[in-house]
């Protein structure tokens, strides 16, 4: 059984990389290197997804070939993605060149050795997700997004590949005064930890040996209400209550040996973030965030701690630790940790590296471990277009897997068009 899980893990890495529809990937280093909260550039309170007027305008001027040299006259007089005063629209479209899902299964060579076969590289559509933001009155806003399936013409309307993914988001946000908490209600992602929207990361893994076992995949969203209060620029407190349908769907009861979350269990969130900043003179400003969140439902609870520190327009280092406890019946815990470093060589060229580890512990686990190291860069050739190649090494330490050194290495590249 362990060997099959090794195969699964080895071969599911490209699978999961490729097939994840994403709510526009959040880049937390952007907040750390600018000293601005995510909401400066994104409508979502924890980043990702549709951009605000500021975010849109910044991206209009981000690219190796800047907008005024692209000769795209369509955007010349445009300073925002609002189509009318009270409504803005946007969209993300993504494709990826990666190992295909329908790769050959493991085979046995003539010499009797097991042969693990990498699927061939191919270009794969990942996401087509339109957004809309409406301001019916100053104090209330409505947001909606929808992940359109690439099987749309085969009758599949929504891009849901993995358990826990929602078709999109639809919520109302009310903010009556800066001195009062803002409220968010509807279907959205609870603000747990740092938002990455990258489910190749180990942050929410429930089993290190099983690559597809992410508790909160990209586009994870629940129906609920969340309050956010930031009385001073340096402190933010969030609390929320939600349904747990997607969480119940994502947590693998077979793996746990018991039902961990019933869809009817209420989910809860608490999150505190401290935003320190240090100014040592011109171009020597440092920003950061230090925070913790707790999120759970039923027997599941995820305690997360996160730290980020950025140097204005230079780079950032971010660390996050998650402790996923699946309850006394499941007798299983998973501890996931990641550290990411990014250097802003230019606004249009940002290399990054990331190291990660996931460890499963408890009576109902085999002390499985996974380590990964990823290096790549974000390259913006022209505004609103990003190319992101990455190379990833993965190492498994599982009972039954005696492989020494790295278990696999893989290269892939993502093309992201957004507006």
């Amino acid at each position, binding site marked *: 059984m362990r060997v099959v*899980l090794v195969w699964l893990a080895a071969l599911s890495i490209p699978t999961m990389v490729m097939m994840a529809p994403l709510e526009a990937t959040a880049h937390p280093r952007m907040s750390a290197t600018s000293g601005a909260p995510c909401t400066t550039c994104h409508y979502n309170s924890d980043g990702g997804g549709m951009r605000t007027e500021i975010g849109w305008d910044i991206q209009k001027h981000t690219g190796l070939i800047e907008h005024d040299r692209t000769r795209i006259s369509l955007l010349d007089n445009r300073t925002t993605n609002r189509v009318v005063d009270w409504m803005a629209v946007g969209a993300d479209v993504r494709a990826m060149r990666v190992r295909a*899902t329908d790769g050959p299964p493991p085979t046995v060579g003539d010499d*009797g050795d097991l042969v693990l076969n990498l699927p061939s590289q191919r270009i794969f559509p990942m996401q087509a997700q339109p957004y809309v933001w409406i301001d019916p009155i100053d104090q209330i806003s409505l947001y909606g997004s929808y992940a359109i399936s690439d099987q749309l013409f085969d009758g599949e309307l929504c891009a849901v590949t993995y358990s826990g993914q929602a078709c999109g988001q639809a919520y109302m946000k009310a903010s009556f005064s800066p001195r009062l908490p803002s409220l968010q209600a509807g279907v959205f992602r609870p603000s747990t930890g740092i938002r990455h929207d990258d489910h190749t990361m180990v942050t929410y893994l429930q089993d290190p040996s099983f690559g597809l076992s992410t508790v909160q995949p990209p586009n994870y969203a629940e129906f609920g209400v969340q309050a956010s209060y930031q009385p001073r620029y340096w402190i933010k407190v969030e609390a929320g209550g939600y349904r747990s349908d997607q969480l119940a769907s994502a947590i693998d009861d077979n793996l746990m040996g018991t039902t961990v979350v019933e869809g009817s269990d209420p989910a809860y969130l608490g999150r505190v973030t401290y935003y320190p900043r240090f100014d040592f003179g011109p171009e020597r400003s440092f920003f950061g965030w230090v925070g913790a969140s707790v999120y759970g439902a039923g027997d599941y609870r995820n305690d997360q701690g996160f730290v980020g520190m950025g140097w204005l327009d230079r780079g950032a280092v971010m660390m996050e630790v998650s402790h996923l406890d699946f309850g006394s019946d499941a007798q299983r815990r998973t501890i996931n940790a990641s550290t990411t470093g990014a250097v802003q060589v230019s606004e249009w060229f940002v290399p990054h590296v990331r190291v990660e580890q996931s460890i499963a512990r408890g009576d109902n686990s085999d002390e499985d471990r996974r380590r990964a190291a990823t290096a790549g860069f974000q390259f913006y050739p022209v505004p609103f277009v990003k190319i992101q190649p990455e*190379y990833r090494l993965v190492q498994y330490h599982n009972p039954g897997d005696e492989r020494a050194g790295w*278990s696999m*290495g893989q290269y892939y590249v993502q093309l992201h068009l957004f507006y």
Partner: protein
Amino acid sequence: MSSDSEAMSRRSAIKAIAVLSVCPLIQSCEFVNHDGLESELEATGFSLDDPDFEDLTSVGGTACFALGAVEVLLVRTSEQEVLAFNRICPHNSLSMGPCDSGAQAAQWDEQEEMLVCQWHQSGFDRNGEVVQQPTVGSVDEPLQVYPVEFDAETGEGIVFLPE
């Protein structure tokens, strides 16, 4: 000023091209390390008297079976027959075995005579050929099938790996 900025852009472009040109080189670094996962190839028998295989006593029953490192799914397709498939569905490389944690057991459709993977409903005939496409994406690769000798009277069988 203008020429400076143009020179800067030119230098930037050259840098970007240099960086991107490294990408194809990195592809040659792709690998899957299978050292230590080698299997010992030998045909291994099974018996319906064994509790691990008792589900095969009825038609449609399935059981897991390992030959060295190769994981096999056994399916009782008729009174007289047991088939052996690779347990990894070639659609998404997910396990179809009833014995693996996190897996969804494949089911044998007697009427259509096909094995249906419960992850995305991919269907394979007795030779492993794809006869039903999955509900998500598509699958072209056949499912690997292993020869089986099965004696319904004694309930004993042997599975062979292909040469």
